[in-house]
């Protein structure tokens, strides 16, 4: 019954607007610009016969002459002395640590002929085999020509000797030095800072663009230690999140996604409640999502606390304000939590220490500490306390500091009051930045000493207490840069090369760069300080494995004495919650791809569609339908947002289903330079929303209330991929409730199967006794969170070009795998939230049709009341990854006039680019719209200056995959290069294939293990088992395409 749910992709599809209908019929979003092309060259628009003959004759002659050309002479340059472990044509894999974010995930780097070309998670590290989209994409910044290539002095390029001499002199005369850095959890780097502080009197101030001060302060107060605990979502039966997007952006999302899906096995899955304003990735996966005005968060948590405290006999928090919404919702949450004592997690995304303290109180009452929340094996991923940076600014304004060193921190961009910071910095004599890019902060300083990319650096990290990792270089520095740690060591006179150069035999690398200095430092540090590592051999083993778990960390366990008095919280909550419940909240959030904006200029993450809005290349203000109607704002309008004198003008609007009423949301991390323009010049992408942040209760807050929003003239089309394809009411998505699943594992998937007619004879590989392979894939919709890591991983693996904002608007994005996001109306009682609709155990979901939803909308418009818009506020979401389905009866193959797309003997639908003449018949005939047409030669076109068309950027290209030229179709090949490679490996080793040996790029990158690939002719393979699973189904079964991709129904625990 739940599969009667009607899904839709966007509002125009829901309302079936006239434009939508018109668009539906068109193959391309716009007519082909033939006339434009002709008129551009001053040709007659109406070409006559003579012109035709002219062009015809000219092209024939040109082609004939071109064919007579001498073949180019190609050179082959072998190694002079071949490094023992580098073989042309064979990839090497190195374990290291992701340095792009401070989350410190363990990674495996694939290196071909000395070039790192792919980054994936290290399966043995704490974060598992998956990796985030940003982590995947971070490899591109290694080959970014925008990186600083030399040290700068006063904005001009100079050499290291000059800057070193100047800086050493300046530091020697400095009374006090400040080092401002992102969170550093590298033991060796911290020891470098310690040594630095021994020579120059130094304060090390940790500044995180997105800080977790609230949690740190709350834990300091409650448990005596300013740490972030480890959350084990896999052990938790009930997860309650107040606006913490732990699957997308909160603290350690890759790690949490892995744990979360472990706890979501159908039949015994956890229940996930999400309270939030803007629809986040976590919210879209939640079983129950409640649209909450985030400025009311303190009130929600206090109310929930009181409900629990009442049952547990603890003191209540004196709440003076009454929360007259959602009373029953919280009752049900409380009941659920009390039923699962010690097996739940309550988290909050707020950065307010008091709110976090109440969350701690809740978790303590529920007995979660020691069970699902671990304060001993804590996280080191974020350690920045906002008060410290605030103190730095006031100290600096008072002239305390003579010198400041910015290390991987860019407060001039991400600090809410950049002017104030600038004023403070003007009092400091010597300003140094160790940035890799000329970022906003580096522009303010005298000396920029560019740091290496993390793939060029040595180092170590301790993202979780007792779980250590090594960082090792996989390429020698591309530019004349120097590792930040080495810069610091140099300035305290410890930057000499070791007497016995460990790389003497690999002379070129060591001579040119100071790689050996920090290698020796890290190695010695480990041997001297890390328990269990005493010899170089021990160190080398850690280096090989990439990770090291400390044996019984001898830190004393934090005593679980928790004694916080909530009696004084009444006025605090009153102060936090705005009086006017109709004031508009502004929520600043991070996007899954862009995060805090450090890699805003990375085209791979920019072109990754946002998991919820499917917008690329821009940020925008997400506003709820009700507010839009009230303010007469439509999709694509521009608005002006004002708060306390901070203004963002001419900002595009995205009307977002799921956005809570009276709240708007803007993504952080934009408003920086990047290559988004067609002509390849750098331009500012989106707008910077950091200035809207506020400093309250000793921490920067991302929610403010009382903002003004007004429509301004103008229009802007967001490059949104969501409307590119439509579902047209077809049965692509299947789901069931946990209760139904327990009764019948095929629930939601047990409709009568259509009678199928076969036109073709069976493929040989499908015969029962076939000894060959039959490659197939299974995708578990219950595991997929829609994070988009696979999209980026696929692009990197398969040399998928980036097309830019304008081409995405024309629906020409090239992604081989896309994640379709569907909305459906959730049943809400739109007149009274307090009715027990959400959560009663014997609750039977009400079937909400699109028509009902639209009716409600009409009612809302007629009555000018907000209540009916509630349908829009609480939509349910499905994520469905779609790539080429490798149909056995493939519709695309039968229509190709040149046999460019054919079927392989192993069940793959193959695409032969050099045969393709670009008729696009196949794309027209594909029911899943997964074939992409190359409109341009992206790898050699100035208009697409992203990375594909410069020598350095081309280094990231996978040499095993053809770079397609224009005019051909392309699509998912199921990573046939990996299949071939895996088979060849088995053949060389003269053994049978092992299931799981071949992993497609999307499968490898998935933190949730939602994608499984393997051989269907192997009965024991994982994919065969999933194919036999009752939950599995083919899309559009009635077409009898017999795809090589099956989906597993989603289960909702409601």
């Amino acid at each position, binding site marked *: 019954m739940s599969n009667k749910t009607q899904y839709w992709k966007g509002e125009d599809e829901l309302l079936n607007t006239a434009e939508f209908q018109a668009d539906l019929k068109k193959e391309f979003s716009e007519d082909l610009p033939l006339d434009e092309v002709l008129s551009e060259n001053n040709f007659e628009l109406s070409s006559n016969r003579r012109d035709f003959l002219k062009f015809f004759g000219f092209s024939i002659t040109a082609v004939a002459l071109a064919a007579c050309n001498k*073949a180019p002479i190609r*050179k082959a340059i072998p190694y*002079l002395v071949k490094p023992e472990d580098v073989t042309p044509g064979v990839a090497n894999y190195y374990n290291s640590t992701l340095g792009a974010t401070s989350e410190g995930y363990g990674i495996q780097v694939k290196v071909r002929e000395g070039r790192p070309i792919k980054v994936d998670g290290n399966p043995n590290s704490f974060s598992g085999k998956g990796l985030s989209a940003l982590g995947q994409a971070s490899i591109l910044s290694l080959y970014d020509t925008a990186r600083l290539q030399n040290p700068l002095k006063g904005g001009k390029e100079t050499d290291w000797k000059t800057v070193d001499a100047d800086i050493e002199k300046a530091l020697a005369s400095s009374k006090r030095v400040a080092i401002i850095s992102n969170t550093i959890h590298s033991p060796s780097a911290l020891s470098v800072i310690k040594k630095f502080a021994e020579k120059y009197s130094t304060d090390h101030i940790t500044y995180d663009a997105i800080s977790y001060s609230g949690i740190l302060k709350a834990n300091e107060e409650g448990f005596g230690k300013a740490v972030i605990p480890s959350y084990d979502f896999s052990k938790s039966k009930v997860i309650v999140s107040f606006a913490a997007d732990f699957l997308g952006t909160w603290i350690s999302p890759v790690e949490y996604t892995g744990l979360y899906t472990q706890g979501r096995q159908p039949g015994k899955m956890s229940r996930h409640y999400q309270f939030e304003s803007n629809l986040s990735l976590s919210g879209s996966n939640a079983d129950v999502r409640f649209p909450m005005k985030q400025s009311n968060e303190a009130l929600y948590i206090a109310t929930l606390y009181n409900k629990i405290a009442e049952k547990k006999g603890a003191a209540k928090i004196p709440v003076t304000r009454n929360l007259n919404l959602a009373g029953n919702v919280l009752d049900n949450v409380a009941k659920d939590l009390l039923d699962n004592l010690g097996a739940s997690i309550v988290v909050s995304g707020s950065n307010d220490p008091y709110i976090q303290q109440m969350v701690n109180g809740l978790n303590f009452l529920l007995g979660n500490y020691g069970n699902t929340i671990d304060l001993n094996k804590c996280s080191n991923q974020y350690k920045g306390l906002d008060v410290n940076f605030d103190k730095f600014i006031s100290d600096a304004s008072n002239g305390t500091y003579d010198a400041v060193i910015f290390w991987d921190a860019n407060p001039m961009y991400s600090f809410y009051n950049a002017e104030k910071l600038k004023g403070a910095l003007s009092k400091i004599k010597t300003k140094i930045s160790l940035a890799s890019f000329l970022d906003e902060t580096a522009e303010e300083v005298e000396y920029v000493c560019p740091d290496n990319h993390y793939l060029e650096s040595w180092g170590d990290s301790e993202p979780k207490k007792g779980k250590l990792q090594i960082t090792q270089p996989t390429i020698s520095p591309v530019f004349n840069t120097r590792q930040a740690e080495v810069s610091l060591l140099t300035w305290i006179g410890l930057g000499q090369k070791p007497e016995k150069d460990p790389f003497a035999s690999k002379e070129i690398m060591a001579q040119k760069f100071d790689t050996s200095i920090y290698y020796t430092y890290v190695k010695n540090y480990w041997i001297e300080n890390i328990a269990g590592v005493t010899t170089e051999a021990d160190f080398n083993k850690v280096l090989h494995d990439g990770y090291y778990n400390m044996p019984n960390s001898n830190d004393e366990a934090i005593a679980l004495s928790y004694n916080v008095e909530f009696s004084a919280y009444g006025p605090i909550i009153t102060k936090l919650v705005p009086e006017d419940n109709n004031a508009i909240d502004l929520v600043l959030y991070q996007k899954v791809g862009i995060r805090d904006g450090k890699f805003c200029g990375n085209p791979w993450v920019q072109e990754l569609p946002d998991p919820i809005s499917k917008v690329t290349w821009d940020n925008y203000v997400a506003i709820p339908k009700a507010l839009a109607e009230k303010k007469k704002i439509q999709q694509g309008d521009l608005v002006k947002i004002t708060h306390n004198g901070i203004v963002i003008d001419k900002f595009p609007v995205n009307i977002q289903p799921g956005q809570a009423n009276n709240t708007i949301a803007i993504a952080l991390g934009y408003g920086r330079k990047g290559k988004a323009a067609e002509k390849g010049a750098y331009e500012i992408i989106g707008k910077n929303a950091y200035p809207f942040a506020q400093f309250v209760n000793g921490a920067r807050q991302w929610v403010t209330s009382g903002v003004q929003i007004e429509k301004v003239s103008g229009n802007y089309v967001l490059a949104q991929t969501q409307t590119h394809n439509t579902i047209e009411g077809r049965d692509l998505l299947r789901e069931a409730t946990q209760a139904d699943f327990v009764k019948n594992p095929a629930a939601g998937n047990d409709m009568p199967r259509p009678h199928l007619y076969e036109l073709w004879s069976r493929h040989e590989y499908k015969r029962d006794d076939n*000894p060959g392979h039959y490659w197939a894939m299974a995708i578990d919709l219950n595991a997929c969170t829609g994070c988009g890591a696979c999209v980026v991983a696929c692009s990197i693996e398969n040399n998928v070009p980036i097309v830019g904002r304008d081409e995405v608007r024309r629906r020409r994005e090239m992604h081989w795998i896309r994640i379709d996001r569907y909305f459906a109306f959730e049943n809400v009682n739109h007149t009274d939230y307090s009715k027990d609709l959400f959560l009663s155990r014997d609750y039977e979901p009400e079937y909400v049709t699109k028509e009902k939803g639209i009716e409600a909308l009409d009612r809302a418009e007629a009555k000018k009341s907000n209540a009916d818009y509630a349908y829009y506020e609480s939509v349910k979401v499905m994520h469905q990854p779609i790539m080429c389905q490798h149909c056995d009866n493939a519709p695309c193959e039968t229509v190709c006039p040149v046999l460019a797309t054919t079927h*392989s003997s192993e069940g793959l639908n*193959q695409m032969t680019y050099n045969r393709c003449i670009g008729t696009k018949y196949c794309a027209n005939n594909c029911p899943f719209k997964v074939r992409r047409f190359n409109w341009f030669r992206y790898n050699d076109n100035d208009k697409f200056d992203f990375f594909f068309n410069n020598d350095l950027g081309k280094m990231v290209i996978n040499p095993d995959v*053809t770079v397609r030229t224009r005019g051909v179709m392309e699509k998912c090949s199921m990573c046939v290069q990996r299949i071939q490679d895996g*088979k060849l490996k088995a053949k060389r080793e003269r053994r*049978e294939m092992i299931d799981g040996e071949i992993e497609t790029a999307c499968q490898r990158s998935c933190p949730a293990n939602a994608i499984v690939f393997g051989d269907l002719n192997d009965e024991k393979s994982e994919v065969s088992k999933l194919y036999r699973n009752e939950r599995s189904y083919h899309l559009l079964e009635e077409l009898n395409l017999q795809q090589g991709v099956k989906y597993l129904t989603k289960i909702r625990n409601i």
Partner: protein
Amino acid sequence: MIKLSDIIKNSVKVFSLATFLITIGSFSAHAQDAPSAAKGKELFEQQACMACHAIDRVVIGPALKDITKQKSEEWLIKWIRNNVQLRESGDKDAIAIYKEYNQAAMNTYEHLTDNEIKSILMWIEEESAPKATASTGTGEPDAQVLKGKELFEQQACMACHAIDRVVIGPALKDVTKRRSKDWLHSWIHNNVKLRESGDADAIALYKEYNSAAMNVYENLTTEDIDAILAYIEYESVPKVAKESTGVKGGDAQSEKGTFYNTTTLYVIIVIAAILLIIAVVLYRIRRKLSNVLKEFEAGDHKEKTVTEYLKNKYNTSRRTINTILIIVSVGLVLGIYGFYFGVTEVGVQRGYAPTQPIAYSHALHAGELNIDCRYCHSTADYSKAASIPSLNTCMNCHVGVQLRDKYDGEVSPEIQKIYTALDYNPDAKPGERFGNNPKNIKWVRVHNLPDLSYFNHSQHANVAGLECQKCHGPVQEMEVIQQYATLQMGWCIDCHRNTGVDVENNDYYEKLHAFAKKDIEKNGDKSKYLKDGKVNITIANIGGLDCSKCHY
């Protein structure tokens, strides 16, 4: 007076004839019927003659050098076709050879046609020519040639002659093939006398070269003249083989003798010929038209305009159609030829043998010294690339092998190139020999497989266990490495269709092997996996023809 229509008719005739000739000419270049040395080479390899024979040394059977001079063609054809029959017929020579070579009977080749055998013989003859000596290592012309060279210079022959171009007298290249030895002797000795004797050739030659008489060389002995002729013969052999022995080496920029140079030349010649014909036709049309105009102005006629006059005078519509038909058919023939040419030849670099920066001889290393291919190209075993070996591999031997005895105590110049690239000084103290200024060697890629096709060496060399020679040809005989196979897709496919997979000795194929055995049990002779009583699974049987095996 010539009629306009006739002119057009004639010019069309000339035009079509010319194109026809060009076409036929080009076709005949590719014709397979007439015996040719190239065909002979192919056959020689196809029939695996080299299993028992080599040109210049005994393998199992005798060395074939100059065999055509020792035995008559007729006898050789008989012998090759069926030596047993020949021996049984009591031929003494045949029996003698049989006994001489340990009574190891040669195979019979009854399926070969006369022309095919002739082709083989032609190739053997060609291989026996002096260049063979030049390329088998000594590289030095023999004493007679040297003497000839000396005489040639002494007598200042080059004042009037060159080998490959006309100076005052004719080019001498292959003169020994054009004229009989006796005639040449009498001509060089005293050409005046020869002419006076009424020799038609001599008189024609005299006239051809502007009646400039050649000097008389009565002082030269018969041996002297023989020597000179030997020298001319020596010089007439194409230089490729000799140059490749690596005296020059050096810069690799000049890629002579690539396929495209000659093609371009042919294309230009054909185009020039066509343009010339068109020019002539147009010129004559113009002349004719002006004549008609004169006629019109002078004459008395009822037509008022020239056009009408012309129309009535020459009613050409039928002829036009005919002309168009002819042009179209000629165009069609040319088009088909062009298509055939384009499909089979354009972009194929078979035989491409560029000069490399180091004149490395595979004939020496792989042939004479018998070094295993995979000693240097070791990555062929486990990588997709066979890769050009790095210089440290060369240094394994050449740290010692310096050939100083051949170069007056100096390091051989080619080996020196390795040292220069590595910045290595063999005369310095050990430990100080490597400098800090190494330079890469930029080899010229010979096998340029396009990016769109994926080829993996380890698949073929390791898994399939192929000999390198299967695709790269007799590398052990190549002075300069060259592309042996066409590298066209058809060539790959052919092999994949016909080659069996060794399913027995690789556990990867265990299931496949069992399957094939079962199939044979069930279907007996009808099973497609049975050949010569054995399990035979071709690469094509297991998906070796799938596009995505090579294109992704």
